[in-house]
């Protein structure tokens, strides 16, 4: 069986095959033979060439989180990337930049109005989450084309807040 993952936007293919009591994994020119034991639905024990690794693993939608040897990696199933492009399309009209909420939270204040000229790093909005205010800054000099949120709105991460047309 073969799977494909995106590791930091780079596509990696990995195949696995059972061989006796062990599993053989191949990714690119690397081959790994591992003795795998299932500890729980979210934990495996791997022994690779005598080295023991405890793996914690979980997924949400198309993101897989893997923790081993004190490091946590995030992998994406490629489906995720395609969907993101689709979602991004509606906002990324020609020449328009969409400023999105960086995390889920509550819009405290929108500091600009449509048709306002803004400077790079000017504060456009304030989003509060977990009692901390976070200023959303303009990524460029430009003009505010559209505002999608108002004070008091609860927003999700990646929700479009403001559209800016770059100054030409």
């Amino acid at each position: 069986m073969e799977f494909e993952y995106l590791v930091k936007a780079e596509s990696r293919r990995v195949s696995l095959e059972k061989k006796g009591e062990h599993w053989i994994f191949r990714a690119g020119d690397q081959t790994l033979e591992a003795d795998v034991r299932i500890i729980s639905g979210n934990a495996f024990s791997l022994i690779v060439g005598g080295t023991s690794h405890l793996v914690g693993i979980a997924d949400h939608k198309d993101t897989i989180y893997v923790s081993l040897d004190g490091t946590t990696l995030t992998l994406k199933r490629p489906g995720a990337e395609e969907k993101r492009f689709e979602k991004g399309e509606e906002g990324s009209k020609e020449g328009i930049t969409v400023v999105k909420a960086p995390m889920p939270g509550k819009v405290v204040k929108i500091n600009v109005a449509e048709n306002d000229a803004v400077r790079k790093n000017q504060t456009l909005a304030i989003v509060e989450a977990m009692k901390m205010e976070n200023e959303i800054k303009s990524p460029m000099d430009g003009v505010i084309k559209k505002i999608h949120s108002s004070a008091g709105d609860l927003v999700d991460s990646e929700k479009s807040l403001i559209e800016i047309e770059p100054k030409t």
Partner: protein
Amino acid sequence: MFKKIVIANRGEIACRIIRACREMGIASVAVYSEADRAGLHVQMADEAVGIGPPPAVESYLHMDRIIEAVRETGAEAVHPGYGFLAENPEFARRLEKEKIVFIGPNSRALELVGDKVRARQTMEKAGIPIIPGMKRVADDFAEYAAEAKAIGYPVMIKASAGGGGKGMRIVCSEEDLRPALEAGRREAKSAFGDESVYLEKFIENPRHVEFQVLADNDGRIVHLFERECSIQRRHQKIIEETPSPALTPELRQRMGEAAKRVLEVSGYNNAGTVEFLLDREKRFFFLEVNARLQVEHPVTELTTGIDLVHRQIRIAAGEKLDLKQEELSQRGHAIECRIYAEDPANGFLPSAGKILFLQEPKGPGVRYDGGIFSGWDVPIYYDPILAKLIVWAETREAACRRMRSALDDTVILGIKTTIPFLKDIISHPRFREGATTTGFIKDHFGDWKEKEASGETEILSLASAAFFDSRKTSEAGVLSVRAKEQYSPWRMLGKWRIGEKSDLSGE
């Protein structure tokens, strides 16, 4: 002793207090907002009462609802934890009026030390050194601007009702003053329900050293030594330890006596913490009294052997303090790391969401105080603290190693946390030397990025993901993967099995 206590808080601290209640044979009542119905503190408590919608002002800060919960359950006392109503004198006063015991200081002492400006005046009179700055809240912007000029930039904006870094801002020039004041006031309003702020001289790169103090209702006072809490981001502590690498026995004794004096002149009872800044010349300045149980109280517990929550409850119940200053001592070294739902590589942006997997650390000298579980959806409404990891060891160096190992054992998947950042701080040579100041993170970790995973870790992760997905596929018989498989060379392998479940070779 009380028979039943309401814990007016949530998360890890509510769980910590519920445990103390259990140990003391006291029934515990959790209160919860709609966002916390499934919260760990609700799971652990003997009784649980819903107190309103998710925003804190409509639930955990809503005094009427909490008092109703006390009445409804027949509890005798309220433990406020930290944050929310913990240092709110009006709340303490209302409880006093209702003949409900507030497990914390009396309302007059709370009022005095909670008003940072009045506290500064009182301490100055008592001969305790204070940071130069305003001794009253200004009426308008012009007055702030004039005060800032008189103090000299950079100045620090502080919430008069403050604590915990909320509402604090450093201002380096007059043009930044207005927006910083606005933001500080909004944050103070949202955190404490009081928007007054004042200005102080900003002391560059000090150490933050605080003293834990216990006072009974008859004025017996002891201090339980210091905690150094210099490692901060956004003026909020993330690593604390005791003993402080900076104190000599002589300085420790002087500061400890000053801390006791602070509580004495405030007419204070129950547990409190006196915060000081220690400048480069090792001069100390009174900062404020934290009139509550501190987040970092466990490091004191591990080095002194005194259970602070038990002591708080016993003092509130009227017991006399049977501790003698000369009999108290510090043993070994303890460090605490705060695990927050924040992205340390991205300006510590909060990271709410679902915890998909949690592995708690264990081992000798390791204490884990948490408020989360696998499957818990971290709400956006409250402080982002998830858990605290505390270690004790014979020496500072051994404690650092133990902490590093315990952090490696702590796994939280699904949201960003401060864990990788904490590991790098604990491993940093300057931290190991004890060269800790409040500027430490800015100086050494300003543009921190998580270390790249090694090639070996990466391939092991890919292999693990593939194994994980192959099990999912075999369990669910997912068609999409099967379809993909038709183009895969591994289809040639013929029959193969995973576990004892389905067989995918039938196509």
